[in-house]
């Protein structure tokens, strides 16, 4: 009894690794000393300090990405026990062990848990997810946004381009060009803005192009997975309505 009381409690991890983008994935097991309130990132830091596998063999430290450590930057997205989420807000005490870490393989895997989310930033460019305010002279203040509108629009602005919704979506894959839920919600955000609204049709047209909003199959995994609780399916349906209107407007040459 005395022995078990002094024995260091550990947390078991099974991590899917790969050395290069084109290399075959493999798993390695780690046993990390337990500390109260630790999260997946602090466990990965521990492995970085002492890169020894559960069987005692030395290995290269596990690579991952993270920045803010408070679930606002979107960098540490990975698949934890089968669900895509942020590693920084994944508390070890609330996870079933062994904790399985995998990269979000919907995206190109760079190394271990590091993925390339470039397609999300390309998507934001494609749908013009910004408000054009530049002119050759001072355009003056824009129209004001109603407070009631600002309140729901603020929820949409919480998107951190983390890619979890794309990983959860069954229609984002190599056989489909679907842009994914996040940029569709951003179109709703920027079209809601009184100045952004002036270019609303450009964003809608971008989503009525190949790989646009039609790729949504209504599985609604996105809204269940979004770490920021963004009403993605409401955004998609709202943009479905707006693109449908845009379609008829174009046909009737309005």
């Amino acid at each position, binding site marked *: 009894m005395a022995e078990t009381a002094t024995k260091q409690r550990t947390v078991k991890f099974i991590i899917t690794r790969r050395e290069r983008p084109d290399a075959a994935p493999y798993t390695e097991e780690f046993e990390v000393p337990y500390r109260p309130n630790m999260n997946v990132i602090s466990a990965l830091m521990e492995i970085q300090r002492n890169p020894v596998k559960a069987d005692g063999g030395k290995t290269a430290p596990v690579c991952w990405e993270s920045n803010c450590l408070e679930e606002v930057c979107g960098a540490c997205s990975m698949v934890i026990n089968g669900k895509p989420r942020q590693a920084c807000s994944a508390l070890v005490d609330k996870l079933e062990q062994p904790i399985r870490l995998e990269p979000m393989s919907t995206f190109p895997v760079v190394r271990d848990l590091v993925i390339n989310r470039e397609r999300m930033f390309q998507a934001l460019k494609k749908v013009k997810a910004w408000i054009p305010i530049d002119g050759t002279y001072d355009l003056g203040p824009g129209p004001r946004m109603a407070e009631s509108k600002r309140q729901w629009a603020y929820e949409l602005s919480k998107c951190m381009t983390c890619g979890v919704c794309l990983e959860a979506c069954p229609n984002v*894959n190599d056989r489909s060009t679907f842009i994914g839920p996040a940029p569709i919600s951003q179109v709703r955000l920027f079209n809601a803005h009184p100045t952004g609204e002036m270019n609303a049709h450009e964003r809608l*047209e971008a989503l009525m*192009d190949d*790989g646009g909003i039609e790729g949504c199959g*209504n599985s609604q*995994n996105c809204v*269940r997975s979004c770490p920021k609780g963004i009403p993605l399916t409401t955004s998609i*349906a709202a943009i*479905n309505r707006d693109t449908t209107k845009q379609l008829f407007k174009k046909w009737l040459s309005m």
Partner: protein
Amino acid sequence: MSGNSYLPRKLHSLLGVIPLGLFFIEHALTNYSAFEGGREGFLDSVHGLHKLPLIFFLEMFVIWLPILFHGVYGLYIAYQSNLNTGRFSYGRNWAFALQRITGVITFIFVIWHVWNTRVQVALGHTTYDEIGNHMHQIVTQPLNFTLYVIAVIAAVFHFSNGLWAFLVSWGITVGPRAQRVSSNICMGIFVIVSVLFLLSLFAFRSDEFASAAAAGAAFGPVTFG
């Protein structure tokens, strides 16, 4: 909008409801007349339909061409989807997966069913007067009956859940509450239309439709089972 997938996808969604969904309901009601009115009732419904003017063009533009487009493009949509219900076992994700699975089942079934019925009429192997007896012959075989029951439930699910998705895809039900209410209504439609089709399948098995069965006997080998 060149090389665009938006328009065909939108057309696919529209055709599923208008005209195919309307035809599907009509089909359920016509079949149900076999349960409610027996052989006479069913014959009246069939005759009533085939008395419609320009019936060939109605069939072509309201049934055959829409089914062909909806089915072939639907197979392409199903091919583009992953099934990840193992990782995300949410109700809507199951509906998403089932929508694709039942779509494929329905498409295969429709080809078989049209071959068994409409094509046999066109080839002169049976007539609309004998179609009830013809169905009796098919569904009294246990294997065929089982396949019909599975396919009919699959088709009704595909229609009901497709109606729900249509309302989302055209931006009619936007918020979560609207989508939840329409989901309940569509599942109600699923139950009601399934019952209509199943009752008519049982009606076709009754002896009433066996009386002139000999007329279609020559065509027996074409059916499965």
